[in-house]
């Protein structure tokens, strides 16, 4: 197990390198001009040329990449934001916390509602509960996040005045965005849980357990769920990676100061150092989540071995 983890961690490094090269090159291929982005359009030609040289944009692109990578590896320096002229690393740290909290809480909602709905739907198959559960998950999957968020704001902020419609700072600020973000994932988890539980319920060992006269509660809990949850864990892990993408939309709608909103703003204002750092960070997160999912497999089901 340990050697597996170490191997996987070393496997992450080349992937991140490739991602960093790709993001660096892609951005260099866009027709926009970094000097104009950093300093605005208010420069005459001579000043422009001088700044270009001072900022190192006259160097060969390979030299620029080397400098970029070296700064990251040697001192964790991801460069300075074109837009706010502050250190990218510091900006990410500051906002990373906000996003981490938002995603965690959203994931919490998603697991809570998703598992509940899925288990109830499966164990009460073809009853009204099942129907309600499945219709609402289809609905949740179909509505666009930003629309759902706006509806929540209209109802709870503008009409009722209970919750703030944007910004951050208190637990109240977190409720609407986390619910909005968690909704889609909850639906996925619910459908997945239902299917998975139903499949396991048909297994021979469940029939055996019931035949032995065990209480339904014990059957469902200790025999069914344990096995049914393995695919759900995978699914949840993957969804976690996707949540980061979802966070961009939700954070923008709720003016929530997280990494997602930062990504949207940075792309629209062509703040490349920030975009590059975010691409790296998101890739890293995705890889780590995947690793954790694989590890939790083994913990959930001792039969799965990594060698």
């Amino acid at each position: 197990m340990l050697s597996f983890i170490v191997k996987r961690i070393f496997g992450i490094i080349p992937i991140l390198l490739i991602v960093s090269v790709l993001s660096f090159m892609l951005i260099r291929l866009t027709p926009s001009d970094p000097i104009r982005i950093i300093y605005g359009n208010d420069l005459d030609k001579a000043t422009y040329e001088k700044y270009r040289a001072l900022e190192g944009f006259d160097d060969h692109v390979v030299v620029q990449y080397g400098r970029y990578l070296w700064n990251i590896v040697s001192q964790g320096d991801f460069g300075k934001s074109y837009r706010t002229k502050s250190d990218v690393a510091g900006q990410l740290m500051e906002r990373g916390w906000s996003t981490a909290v938002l995603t965690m809480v959203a994931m919490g909602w998603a697991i809570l509602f998703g598992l509940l709905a899925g288990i109830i739907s499966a164990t009460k198959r073809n009853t009204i509960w099942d129907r309600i559960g499945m219709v609402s998950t289809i609905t949740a999957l179909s509505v666009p996040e930003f629309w759902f968020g706006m509806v929540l704001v209209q109802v709870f902020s503008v009409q009722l005045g209970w919750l703030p419609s944007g910004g951050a700072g208190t637990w109240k600020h977190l409720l609407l965005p986390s619910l909005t973000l968690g909704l889609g994932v909850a639906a996925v988890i619910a459908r997945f849980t239902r299917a998975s539980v139903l499949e396991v319920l048909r297994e021979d060992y469940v029939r055996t357990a019931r035949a032995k006269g065990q209480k339904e509660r014990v059957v469902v809990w200790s025999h069914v769920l344990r096995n049914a949850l393995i695919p759900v864990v995978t699914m949840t892990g993957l969804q976690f990676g996707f949540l980061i993408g979802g966070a961009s939309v939700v954070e923008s709608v709720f003016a929530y100061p997280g990494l997602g909103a930062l990504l949207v703003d940075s792309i629209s204002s062509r703040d490349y150092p920030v975009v590059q750092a975010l691409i790296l960070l998101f890739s890293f997160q995705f890889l780590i989540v995947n690793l954790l999912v694989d590890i939790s497999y083994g913990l959930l089901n001792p039969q799965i071995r990594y060698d």
Partner: protein
Amino acid sequence: MGFEKGMEYLRNRKWLGMLLVLMLSLTWLTACNSNNGNTPENTEAKEGNTGTNAAKTEEPAPEPEPAPVPQTLTVGIEAEPTSMNPFNSTDGNSTGVQGSMFEGLLKLDQNMKIQPLLATEYVVSPDAKSVTFTLREGVTFHDGSKLTAQVVKDGLDFVRNKDNKMARASFFSFIEDIKVVDELHLTISSKDANSAMAAYMTHSAGSVISPLELDKKKKDPNYNLDRSPVGTGPYKFAEWKDGQYVKVVPYDGYWNAEGKAKLESITYKPVTEASTRINMLKTGELDIVKNVPSLSAKELEGSADLDISKTPSMDVYYVGANITKKQYNKDVRQAMNYALDKEQLIAQVVNGYGRIADSAIAPNVVGYTAQTPYAFDVEKAKELMKKGGYEKGFDATLWTRNETEFIAVAENVSIQLSKIGINAKVVPLESGTMFDKLDAGKETDMYIGRWSPGTGEADWGLRPNFHSTRIPPNYNNSNFYVNKEVDKLLDEALATPDAAKTQEIYANVQKIIFEDAAWTFLYSPESIVGKRKNVANVVIIPNGYMDLNNVTKE
């Protein structure tokens, strides 16, 4: 198994409980975390080196005249500011925030007239090559340092020096030399005659910043001037929390007793989504929102606790075309002007919050003279197309910025031009990309442009767009408009110190440009500010700046 039973399992399960606890603690943690960042407001506003008390320090007054409780103001801005250094920012969100902390030698009032600020008066030399400023006495910066002529000179020298890599380095490129006459007098001179020199000193780039801060920056090039604003304004910097807000609090030592800050603090919050900004205004999370989309404006106008104020902006929207191509000859350009129903365009694109552009510059710009707009006359347009040799029309590409209003304008223009045979394919481009393409100037065909002169006077409204020295690459005359007469008049106007005379020359330039149909002239939008009704004394300058220095809140 029954539903109740199922619920019972779940209730009994430890992991569910754990999850709930985890989530609650997380939410609670954020709440704590975010409160840590807030400096307690009572530590602010107690710089007692001046005799005046902040409204907060409650001295038992002899007469119980209840002082108004100071209020906080929250302003919604469209994006995170880039910098709090006036020398290094070119975006309106930054300059809007800086305006409460920094002051320049002169300022523009609501009617775009130049008014004294840190300078009490200025005298332009007869040859229009130099201006001498007299500084106000007794002005101090937020860090206690004094305003002198040397401080003003050092600041301007700093921003002009390209080694300092300031975004506004070219802004003052007309300056040749700055002489300190004595402690309160300085003379700024330019190479060529330049009657607009005083107007340049009203611009945010001409803000005066603390000599102590400049020294720190000169000693250590890595010192972050962008995050440590120290000026002479009625408010001083308190905190900038990334992605959340910039906050300013009153400065007790402000030189102007009447202009002292009347609020406990002003907080500027970046909210990028327009609809979210409007919602936050409705709920009272924001007190003021600039640049309200015209669609929302209608809704706000009918609201009980909100109102809007409309000000004609200095923006002019136009269609530019690459005049070096033979299909954009004068007849065709005039045809394009006749072919467009500007009324309909304004109604559709900005819901009527705008006026037809009747010159290359907007009415608020100093030096503006109205021209007679091209009537909406498709028949006449067709005749002109025929005269210009394009009776059957031609295909064109119409670049536009990929922002809602720009796309709407482009689509409207494209549909209207098709009536005279010009089939313009709308190509939305990311704004920076579009500027880069226009600056390169190689592929330019037609494009939707918007121009607003930062100095609020005609030279900056006309020279960048119509002077032959400004054609691409790298310059803004993306039309490739070359007219020797216009060049001559523009230079002459700058060299004329007499205001009435310059007005006359500019009137002439505008007439030539308009009759020449150098652009297809569209409209000037109104800038709409939405605010809560209990907010008073917001002053909106037509150049887009919102002066909040005297704002009060009930």
